[in-house]
């Protein structure tokens, strides 16, 4: 068991907005900033500069100036998109929105791209009668952004509060922070704060989620006297999330307080001169390399006890093979780890809706692994050379791939809802893994595709070699604290990295701490690989927020119908 000490840092970014100093209105308070959460300040600055025409802030490395409004980013793990919170979105206005949206649509969603939210008719823009043309995009960290074509207010346009009682909410803000009551084009109730609109609309469907920790974390107001405003808020029984004071890492001596406003919108109240905080990535433990004194618990019948619900979430994004661009680094930096997971996540989630993203994505719930690659043997982290037969099989598999599949068997066993993979490489969602033990068996249930393997650990012999199957025949034995599982009799129809029916796979499960389970897999397939090779990643136990739900894949496999009918229709178009 080679485990190393290491430490690891949680990536975190947040974004805040500062209104132009020229904005003025007859109130004791000024609208000051909106604070968004991302995972990479540098990347976020680049994104808002490149796509929404903001400018980097002078003397700051964590924010941008958007048409007089400052947007500041703080590195922090995000708890999900802004959608369906009390601050559903923010808005920018362009004189030629069709051109702007066309420009953004051409960026694409990969990496730190631009995600478009389409209307029911598939279009990205729609005319709002009596108002203007509008559409929605998301930044890569989950802030929903409305783009409008309002020639009266170009640049940063409004903040959209989603409220259970919009009129009362606007009154609440006006009483404390000023602004003029106004109706945007005589239609939408709001407050005019300098050049910026604070709009409040009826929240549809239940109660808005709290903003703290979400993509738009809070909005801020600057006041002349924080003490007097704080006193008033206290008398009004408003809950303080942060007491007035100079925050840790504050760039100036200006004080800040954070309160829980209407609809659980977090509000920062700051003194004049407040210039944000210098944030540091928090130090957290790297799950993959932590070594602790740990005694593996035992079941009542004396074997190591692995039972519980585990997830591979924290290991999502670790590539199988060592990439070329990391040199000889033993582990990634926290920033690299955060960026890597985000790239993996962003490339996968573009088609999904808000509730799903906000509640399901593993990446919001645990720190990303700093492990460089899964393969630990051979030591170069690369799959060993293939045999000539292995090369031939790979070429055959490549040739069999068709842009327009003729039938289900041209698609992967995953798409067919038969089995996902021999190795449960953590993905962007449904990485749950439940272990249940009896005296002579270990049951392992994999959430995605709801497969359960029951592994005898009592010396029961393997079944006959003619009984081949997709997941093979597994037998387990205890090696000290480790469960060693040998799997044979694969039918070879769900190859892992080109493996064949000659594969023997060995898995080793070891609890390395109360909440960590190290998983090693060895691929030994002499028909395909010139030597066996081994990969490793770590599961984290998370029963407080994780329960396996039924992943009924085949029962709802509309994807298969759509892929095949789409292919037939494309063939018909092409006259084939």
């Amino acid at each position, binding site marked *: 068991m080679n485990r190393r000490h290491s430490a690891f840092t949680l990536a975190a970014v947040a974004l805040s907005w500062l209104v132009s100093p020229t904005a003025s209105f007859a109130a004791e308070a000024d609208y000051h900033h909106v604070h968004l959460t991302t995972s990479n300040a540098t990347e976020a600055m680049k994104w808002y500069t490149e796509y929404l025409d903001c400018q980097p802030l002078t003397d700051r490395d964590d924010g941008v100036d958007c048409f007089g409004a400052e947007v500041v980013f703080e590195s922090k793990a995000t708890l999900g998109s802004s959608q369906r919170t009390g601050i559903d979105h923010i808005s920018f206005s362009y004189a030629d929105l069709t051109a702007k949206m066309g420009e953004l649509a051409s960026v694409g969603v990969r990496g730190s791209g631009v995600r478009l939210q389409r209307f029911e008719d598939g279009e990205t823009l729609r005319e709002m009668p009596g108002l203007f043309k509008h559409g929605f995009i998301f930044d890569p960290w989950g802030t929903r952004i409305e783009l409008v074509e309002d020639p009266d207010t170009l640049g940063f346009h409004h903040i959209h509060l989603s409220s259970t009682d919009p009129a009362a909410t606007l009154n609440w803000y006006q009483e404390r922070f000023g602004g003029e009551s106004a109706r945007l084009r005589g239609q939408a109730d709001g407050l005019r704060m300098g050049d910026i609109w604070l709009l409040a609309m009826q929240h549809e469907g239940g109660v808005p989620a709290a903003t703290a920790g979400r993509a738009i974390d809070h909005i801020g107001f600057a006041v002349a006297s924080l003490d007097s405003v704080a006193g008033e808020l206290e008398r009004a029984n408003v809950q303080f999330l942060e007491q007035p004071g100079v925050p840790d890492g504050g760039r100036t001596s200006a004080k800040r307080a954070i309160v829980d406003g209407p609809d659980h919108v977090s509000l920062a109240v700051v003194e004049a001169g407040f210039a944000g905080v210098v944030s540091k990535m928090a130090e957290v433990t790297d799950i993959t390399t932590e070594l602790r004194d740990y005694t593996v618990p035992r079941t009542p019948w004396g074997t190591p006890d692995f*039972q519980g619900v585990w997830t591979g979430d924290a290991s999502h994004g670790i590539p199988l093979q060592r990439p070329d661009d990391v040199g000889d680094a033993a582990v990634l930096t926290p920033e690299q780890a955060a960026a890597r997971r985000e790239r993996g996540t962003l490339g996968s989630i573009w088609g999904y809706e808000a509730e799903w993203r906000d509640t399901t994505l593993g990446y919001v719930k645990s720190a990303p692994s700093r492990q460089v690659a899964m393969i630990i043997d051979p030591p170069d982290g690369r799959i060993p050379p293939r045999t000539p037969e292995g090369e031939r099989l790979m070429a055959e598999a490549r040739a069999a791939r068709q842009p327009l599949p*003729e039938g*289900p*068997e041209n698609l992967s066993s995953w798409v*067919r809802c038969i089995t996902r993979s021999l190795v449960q490489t953590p993905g962007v969602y449904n990485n749950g893994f439940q272990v*249940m033990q009896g005296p002579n068996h270990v049951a392992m249930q994999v959430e995605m595709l709801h497969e359960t393997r*029951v592994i005898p650990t009592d010396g029961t012999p393997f079944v006959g070699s003619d009984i081949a199957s997709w997941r093979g025949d597994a037998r387990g034995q205890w090696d000290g604290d480790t469960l060693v599982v040998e799997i044979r009799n694969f039918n070879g129809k769900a190859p892992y990295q080109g493996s064949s029916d000659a594969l023997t796979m060995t898995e080793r499960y070891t609890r390395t701490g109360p909440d960590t389970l190290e998983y090693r897999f060895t691929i030994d397939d002499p028909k395909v690989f010139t030597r066996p090779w081994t990969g490793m990643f770590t599961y984290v136990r998370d029963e407080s927020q994780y329960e396996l739900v039924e992943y009924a894949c085949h029962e709802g496999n509309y994807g298969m119908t759509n892929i095949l009918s789409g*292919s037939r229709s494309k063939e018909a178009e092409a006259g084939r």
Partner: protein
Amino acid sequence: MMKRQKQLLAMAAAVMVVILAPGIAAAQGEAPRAFDGHPDFNGVWQAIGTAHWDLQDHPAAAGPVDTGAIGAVPPGQGVVVGNTIPYTPEALAQKQQNFENRWTDDPEVKCFMPGVPRATYLPHPFRIVQGDKKIMMVYGFAEANRTIHMDKPERERAPIDSWMGRSHGAWDGDTLVVDAEGFNGESWFDRAGNHASYALQVQERYTPMGPNVIMYEATLTDENTFTEPWTIRMPLYRRLDENVQVLEFKCVEFTEDLLYGHLRKVPTR
């Protein structure tokens, strides 16, 4: 070996006699005990009989023409206590419609998860893994499985409706009592089209009748479908075959032509 099987059959016959008597009495032979003193259900189990064809009394009948005698329906004595399923008139009409379309509409035909209680008496074995925290039932058909939460005395609502529902269990003496709910209403109970809605609640009782037989009872309650609760009862037998395992039966690929054959480049349907 032959002798052992004969003994087993004799024992099974004895159990059958017992269940015909009112109530359930303990049969001869002690059930094995788990480390904690409860009955030990660890093992591979299977129902024998024709409940998977029809829960109620049914005569022999033809199956799909081209499968001849293999596909024919064997006659069977029902497992419904009293033999009557108390359907509402609308639900009975639905059952009859299901029956008419059974060769295409039955979720079993499509390799969909069977739901509860059907998973128990499909003609496939299932394994019970019983430990100190939860009990898992891993069925041979369609990769279906259930986690019986024995460790949650405060019962939790199903997070979402599903094919296999959510199950909480507790011991009533030597009987394992499982309450299952949170179903999606898509499941059938047999190949005859018996059915229920998402409001279905199933209370199952697993009572040891000796080392190799469990008496299985399930009481089904669903106000949308039935005018009153009703009960099925049948024995489950331990599979004593040497080295018996619940083998992987991924039936999805065997349904692909049925479900998608019309969408192939060269249609097969």
